[in-house]
């Protein structure tokens, strides 16, 4: 009896976690502008696709997320491997610290640094400042995924390669890297999502020409709710959900 109540409660709480998102997706197909169901329609999706501001910011977001997640995956994978070879407590500590630092603090502190730097260099905020910031916060995620995979890696495999005369680089390239491949792919997808979704840090370090999709969604949401935002949000939810499921499957391999 008690365990049945627990199951009912847990089912209700899990439903609570998913319901708002499902409601959003359902109403994105609503013909009406209002929250009353008037029939199935794709008109808000059509409006979203034809909105120049949305498509422009989508392109920006894709470029930023693409570049920063490639960089973060590359740098983060090498770093995780290095830490696995021998611990680097200060560096690992800074990675963890970056995870728990409130986004708003990371954002304003990067802004302060950039503004200081611009006093000496004739540059201004733009796409590249966003990429620098995104790589910084994605590194910890990549390192965690790769480190988890390395925990189940047998050190003697690499030692065998070295004993057989491979250089350190060749042993890494031919033995370790193939073992890490699924985790590298998973880390890349995770970094992609984390970067694409960021609003707080991005809004602080983006320039006038580098408005991202979350920034446009945020502005539209504040202005009052337009069903177009529901359509874009639903697309993001579905795309993210798919990417994360693939990423988790890769991590379990």
């Amino acid at each position, binding site marked *: 009896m008690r*365990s049945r109540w*627990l199951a009912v*409660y*847990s089912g209700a709480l*899990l439903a609570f*976690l*998913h319901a*708002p*998102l499902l*409601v*959003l997706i359902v109403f994105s197909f609503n013909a009406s502008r209002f*929250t*009353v169901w008037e029939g199935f329609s794709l008109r808000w999706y059509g409006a979203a696709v034809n909105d120049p501001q949305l498509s422009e910011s989508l392109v920006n977001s894709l470029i930023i997320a693409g570049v920063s997640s490639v960089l973060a995956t*590359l*740098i*983060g994978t*090498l*770093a995780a*491997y*290095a830490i696995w070879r*021998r611990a*680097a407590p200060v*560096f690992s500590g*800074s*990675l963890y610290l970056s995870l*728990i*630092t*409130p*986004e*708003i*603090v*990371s*954002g*304003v*502190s*990067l802004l*302060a640094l950039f503004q200081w730097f611009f006093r000496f260099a004739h540059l201004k905020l733009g796409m590249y400042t966003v990429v*620098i*910031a995104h790589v*910084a916060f994605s*590194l910890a995620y990549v390192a965690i995924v790769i480190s988890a995979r390395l925990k189940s890696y047998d050190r003697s495999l690499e030692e065998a390669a070295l004993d057989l005369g491979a250089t350190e*680089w060749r042993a890494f390239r031919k033995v370790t890297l193939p073992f890490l491949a699924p985790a590298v792919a998973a880390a890349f997808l995770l970094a992609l999502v984390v970067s694409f*979704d960021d*609003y*707080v840090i991005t809004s*602080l370090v983006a320039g006038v020409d580098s408005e991202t999709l*979350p920034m446009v*969604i*945020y502005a539209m*949401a504040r202005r009052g*709710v337009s069903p177009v*935002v529901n359509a874009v*949000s639903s697309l*993001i*939810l579905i795309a*993210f*959900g798919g990417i*994360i*499921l693939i990423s*988790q499957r890769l991590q379990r391999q």
Partner: protein
Amino acid sequence: MNLRRWFLLPARVWMALSFAAPLAFVCGYAFLTRGDFGGVDRPWTLESFARLADPIYLGILWRSVWIAAAATASCVLLGFPLALFIARAGKRRNLYLQLVLLPFWTSFLVRTYAWLFILRETGLVNTILMGLHVIHSPIQLLYNDGAVLLGLVYNFLPFFVLPLYATLEKMDPLLLEAAADLGAKPRRVLWRVIVPLSAPGIAAGSVLVFIPCLGAYLTPDLLGGGKSIMLGNLIQNQFTTSRDWPFGSAASIVLMLTGALLLSALLRSRAARELL
């Protein structure tokens, strides 16, 4: 051994320049004076920290702590039974864990926006209540502390459930059997055995919820409107509209230090350390 150093170098440089250096700048700026055209100027001073003791700002600090504490307490109350259920679910554990995590991994912005869509004046709740003739005109559900609290609990509940689940899952079922055999009723087993043994998980989960809630920016901004200003919004405001960088920096330091202190207190316990 050389290879390792080269592999670590790019990440070290990147973290030093785009994480450690900016934080060092903010720590320095907090002791400077606001410049005439924004930015910072000399002389060095403690004035920004003194201003944090101003009743207006103490109020914001207090409100942030209160909302973050209420969100944490809600996560404990809501999340404990769920974590217990998942830990006892046998083969279905992974499925339920996935269900907890999936919304968490989808867009943070969209998750917050979904509540805006549901709670606004022409939103789902008001439309339904008016359709049922419970109310005649829309009620204001957004832009108050309750909406912020709801948004925070919704967004950060998985942070509590996961470490607690990890503790509960490791618990030896024989201990529960022993307690029952010795005559303890289920309620007594819960309070005298399960809750004390899962203390590290509860502590870890609470800290993991409290820290991001204290520094929350997006949720109070979207769901709280201008009224429900928290520390994160204050900091953002100082660096953008108000252009008072030293004061914004001082507030950032207070926020960072609070989080760091809580985390280091937690890391003292070995059981909690293993969960993180």
